[in-house]
């Protein structure tokens, strides 16, 4: 019986460790994508807006040395 119980505890602990690992990897992956990601169809609106500002002359390439 003690052997069975220790086996049971080992399995549970192993499952918890694996679960934590998966959770942590997923959390970091989501964080990374939050910070840096590709622009795709979901960003089409804001992209079109920015491109429109360039096309209309509202925005010009910035030649200043600093952002004051």
């Amino acid at each position, binding site marked *: 019986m003690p052997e069975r119980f220790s086996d049971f505890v080992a399995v549970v602990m192993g499952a918890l460790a694996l679960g934590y690992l998966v959770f942590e990897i997923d959390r970091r992956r989501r964080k990374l994508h939050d910070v840096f990601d590709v622009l795709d169809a979901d960003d*089409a609106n804001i992209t079109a807006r920015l491109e429109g500002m360039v096309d209309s002359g509202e925005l010009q390439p910035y030649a200043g*040395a*600093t*952002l004051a």
Partner: protein
Amino acid sequence: MSRSSRGSESSRRPRAAAGASGPIKAQAKPSEPRGVEIASKTENDYATPRFRIFIIDSGWNSAAHQVLQENFGLIRDLQKEDPIYVLSKEQSIELIRHHQDRIGREPLIAVHDLAAMDRSGTAGFHGFRLHLGLMRTPQQALLALQNFARFLSTHRHSADLEAEIRTDLRREGLAGAIEIILHHEAREIGG
């Protein structure tokens, strides 16, 4: 969000790159010029830009904002081939008002890949972006900015930028997993 907007592709590439000549638009000044020198370039002054870089910053008093202010000159010097468009505080706020999910994530640096946009507009991959405002410490923000500048420079001539970005993101994810397994300290960026 709309998935159909493709923008006006005709003016995306500077005429020089497209084989035509002449200015592409009137010389309108920015509504609120920033910096010590007024913008005087047009896209024609850039030989063959691959990217258009946009900086959107509504002005939160944050570490990321400070780091961007202090290092902008260096970023600009490193990216001389590509035009950088800096939205004024008012323009940034107006834009963010229509995209509330970005609030608190600025400074936001969006990079439009002109090559990808020429191929498929904005329907699919068309660039990448950095939410610098998510970096909470100056060290994190500076590291993110440096990584971003390095990425821009090293991938400027990439034939398939999307694939390279996704590969890099996968590699970062894998590196994070290995670190967790090895019980290393949290990574400086995204940690």
